[in-house]
């Protein structure tokens, strides 16, 4: 039982990380219909930015966080203006290939600037450890939980009470109507990219503070897509719930099945099995809007 609970708790930690990445993805998708494959690379850049500002620059945590957010805002703006703006109205493949190309460029930049090395900055971020009975709750899961909840709360406020937030929701609803009442869609797109890159970078800093920054941070992004699909591509709440579900399922399945399989490594492919099953049986996910098209 302890083994099972430990797996569930570890899975919860993993799930919060997935959820954090998935939120950024969902925001861009809702506002501009762009599937951002590079979301995991925002996390990667965030992890390295955290190291840069905390270790070589020696900034205090709040200043490092602000500096990283400033970089993320510039990054989001540049990406939207230079790469995605010219592709408005292009087919899905062009947009997906653009974000894939973006992910390789970001990966290349990370390699160039930080040498694709492992950069640890343990102990610089506050760590929280909790123990319930025999099960220790890892710091990652608590931090992930806190950050996800804070991010979602802030986003809720943004979407409900600010002008740009309302414009973003309206754009998600109907682009033509939004343009006809004089809201600039391009501003909305830029805002969505800024939010996504900021969320990704914050996630990266927190993850880096726990486990160090390395190139593997980007791989989490690929798995987060299973979360997005399970939760429904246009539901922020769905992303969080699905992230937790998937993280737990993945760990439990790997914990019990890996000893039975010779090659192991089930945790690595488990999200993809979930992805295929979801796509075949419930393409709009748990909480997404069904897109009905009949022939």
């Amino acid at each position, binding site marked *: 039982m302890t083994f099972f609970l430990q797996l569930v708790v570890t899975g919860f930690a993993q799930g919060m990380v997935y959820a954090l990445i998935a939120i950024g993805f969902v925001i861009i998708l809702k506002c501009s219909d762009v*599937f951002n494959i590079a979301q995991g690379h925002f996390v990667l850049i965030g992890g390295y930015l955290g190291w840069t500002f905390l270790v070589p620059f020696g900034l205090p945590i709040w200043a490092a966080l602000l500096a990283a957010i400033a970089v993320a805002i510039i990054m989001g703006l540049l990406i939207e203006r230079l*790469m995605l703006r*010219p*592709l408005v109205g*292009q087919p*899905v*493949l*062009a947009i*997906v*290939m*653009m974000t*894939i*190309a*973006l*992910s*390789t*460029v970001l*990966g*290349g*930049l990370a*390699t*160039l600037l930080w*040498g*694709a090395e492992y950069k640890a900055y343990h102990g610089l971020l506050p760590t929280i450890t909790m123990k319930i009975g025999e099960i220790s709750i890892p710091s990652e899961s608590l931090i992930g939980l806190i950050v996800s909840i804070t991010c979602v709360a802030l986003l809720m406020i943004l979407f409900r009470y600010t002008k740009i937030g309302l414009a973003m929701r309206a754009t998600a609803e109907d682009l033509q109507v939004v343009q006809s009442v004089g809201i600039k869609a391009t501003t909305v797109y830029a805002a969505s990219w800024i939010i996504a890159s900021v969320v990704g970078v914050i996630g990266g800093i927190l993850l880096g503070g726990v486990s160090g920054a390395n190139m593997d941070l980007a791989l989490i992004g*690929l798995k987060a*897509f*299973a979360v997005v*699909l399970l939760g429904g*591509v246009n539901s922020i709440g769905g992303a969080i719930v699905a992230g937790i579900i998937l993280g737990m399922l993945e760990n439990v399945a790997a914990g019990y099945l890996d000893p039975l*399989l*010779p*090659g192991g*490594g*089930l945790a*690595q*492919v488990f999200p*993809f*099995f979930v*992805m*295929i099953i979801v*796509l*075949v049986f419930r*393409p709009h996910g748990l909480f997404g809007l069904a897109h009905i*098209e009949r*022939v």
Partner: protein
Amino acid sequence: MRMHTGTFHENYAQEMAILSSRGQWGAVAALLVLLFVCPLFLSDHILTILTTIGIAVVSVHGLNILTGYCGQISIGHSGFMAVGGYTSAILCAKLGWPFWVALPCGALAAGIAGLLFGLPSLKIKGFYLIMATIAAQFIIIWIIIQLRSLTGGTDGLLVPKPTIAGIGLSSKTNYYYLVMVFAVLATITAHNIVRTRAGRAFIAIRDNELAAEVMGVSLWSYKLQAFFIGCIYAGAAGSLLVHYVRFASIEQFPFWDSVWYLGMLIVGGMGSTAGAIFGVVALKLLDELVTVAGPILAAAVAPQAAASLALISHGLIIIIFLIFEPRGLHHRWEMIRTYFRLWPFSHQEIE
């Protein structure tokens, strides 16, 4: 299809011919002769590059039918190559089958795997299908690792020297000829498949699924056909690759290869046989440039510059093509041809 000046089509057969003028026949013949004599004066290194280009051409033709013509985007092409490669490697190494039987079996196995993973395409499209094919890539590689007794898992599998009719193919030159035969065959079949009833159905599905179904094109049948045909090409290419290296390992079929195959299609131009070849050649040459320039850059700037150069250059070339020439090199080539068709006169005289 633009016609050459002075070429008149008088019957339907002439209208349908791929090569309509003597000049075109001559150009194609010259190209073929060049392909088949170049091992006589090229170094082994260049032959290796040309062989990998040939293998990639076979694979990308398949992806072009699936993605460029039928519109079903697949980022799992390298996984389907792995199915073909491993099947023929196992048949040769474990069962001792001859190479010329194992290769079609590998291609067929990849086609069947394509059918299986193509099933979701009946319900989903666009981004969802991309995700399903990415999942296919990772699941296939995972299954290969799991079947350790058959595939050797992560250690890989040694493949015996391929021979056809007693002729050893292990030398670079002989294998080059084999790959080129396959590349030419793949080009001819790919160009003709899209001119058949099935090919026209693929294009109809790509352009408007709803309209195609209303006109009586069976989405179910033709989408699966596209997956089957596309993955057969992938399987043949995977088999050629495995027998070329004479070793099958999962590192030969990485996820990023699947991405670059799509990148080749974008650079070359989707939905055009010539475009597929242009794209493969362009990106493979870029690869070579990076391997040459990498060490120089690493010595001049920083050791990690070489690794980042490969990533950034590939990403940038796709970004540049998507923004400035989404129709690819093939479109540029057509524009140049149109310009020179009447050169030096800018207007066509009507006789």
